[in-house]
């Protein structure tokens, strides 16, 4: 552990901003610094306990459905589908990470086609300016989406209008739809256009996003495993057929 010596550089001023309690260090004086450090340290430990417990809840609640969803995703990739992901704010960065996990996983993992609908700032601002923010993902799905594709939308509240529109558009096109939400699922839980909806039951947006990260990392690993298992099965079938049919088949 490194010691950085920054604590000698003076204490923070004692402003009376109403949000001081939310950023403890911005208002703390030297006298209570040790107390604040202890509080922040304890808060860090508490948060790790919360996310460990929350993941346990998600596993118990959705473990089997994660397997089913990953199998469906693997089948879609096997049929030539691509993964299209979307979300707003922090969830837009998760959408980008989902796409990147599949497209450029690194190491020996198999790359699969995926892209995020949040990346092209020209498209996002053009659609927002000309039509409205509600259509930024639905219109891209209308432009790109094909039947074998997979649409993955992430929201903490489950209420983002542009996600709701995107799921409806995706389902109209026969696309496999996967939703990842928080709290009690919001309006996403009321849609009938989401094939697999995973809801992280927490009241903290940050814990929700942490558990959502785990959900899509799990989906990625399981999808690759299912995809490879399917590829092995296909090869086995193909080779047994070739034996049965004889070399003249080829």
């Amino acid at each position: 552990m490194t010691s950085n010596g920054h604590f000698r550089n003076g204490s923070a001023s004692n402003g009376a901003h109403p949000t001081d309690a939310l950023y403890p260090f911005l208002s703390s004086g030297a006298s209570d610094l040790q107390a604040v450090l202890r509080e922040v340290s304890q808060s860090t430990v508490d948060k790790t306990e919360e996310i460990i417990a929350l993941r346990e809840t998600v596993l118990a609640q959705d473990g089997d459905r994660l397997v089913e969803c990953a199998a469906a995703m693997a089948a879609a990739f096997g049929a030539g589908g691509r993964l299209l992901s979307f979300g707003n704010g922090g969830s837009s960065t998760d959408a980008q990470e989902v796409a990147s996990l599949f497209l450029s996983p690194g190491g020996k993992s198999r790359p699969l086609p995926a892209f995020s609908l949040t990346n092209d700032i020209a498209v996002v601002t053009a659609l927002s300016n000309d039509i409205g923010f509600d259509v930024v993902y639905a219109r891209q799905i209308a432009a790109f989406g094909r039947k074998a594709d997979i649409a993955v939308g992430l929201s903490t509240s489950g209420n983002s209008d542009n996600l709701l529109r995107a799921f409806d558009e995706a389902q109209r096109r026969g696309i496999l739809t996967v939703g990842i939400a928080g709290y009690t699922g919001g309006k996403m839980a009321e849609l009938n256009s989401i094939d697999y909806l995973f809801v992280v039951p927490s009241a903290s947006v940050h814990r929700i996003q942490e558990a959502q990260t785990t959900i899509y990392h799990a989906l990625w690993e399981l999808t690759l495993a299912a995809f490879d298992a399917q590829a092995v099965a296909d090869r086995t079938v193909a080779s047994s057929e070739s034996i049965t049919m004889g070399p003249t088949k080829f």
Partner: protein
Amino acid sequence: MPAYGIDSSQVRRLFERREAPLRTLAGTADQVARTCHAMSLRFHRGGKLVVFGNGGPSTDAQHLAVEFVHPVIVGKRALPAISLTSDVATLTGIANDKGIDEVFAHQIDYLAEPADIALGLSSDGNCGNVLRGLREARDRGLLTIGMGARAAAPSRPSRAWTTS
């Protein structure tokens, strides 16, 4: 359950693998708190947070920046933060002209100020451009913070290396 080549025991193992890093993080809670304090002093001085990383961590960099600029908790004040991974024109331009190792250092050179905080993310701790960015930041007097896996911690140039 039908045979998919995967099963729920695999899901459990996958979730279990993710517990140890959190225990490790909890074990560094004091370091996290001191890092937060050092960051708060920089924000008091008018500094901004500058975040960077490659691949998945590039999305973490963007996520971290938006948490500060637009805090999700109502009433929390906005603090200045930028991600160096968002400007594709600059990233590809610098990568093409000077090489990928310079993409963050170049932006720090022109966008960062001495009061700022540089936060570099690298899972293995070996990303050349993250290390170059942190060195550039340190040379310019920024507070430097690295985040990576525990094994990445030793002998890195940053003043705090938080594991996760």
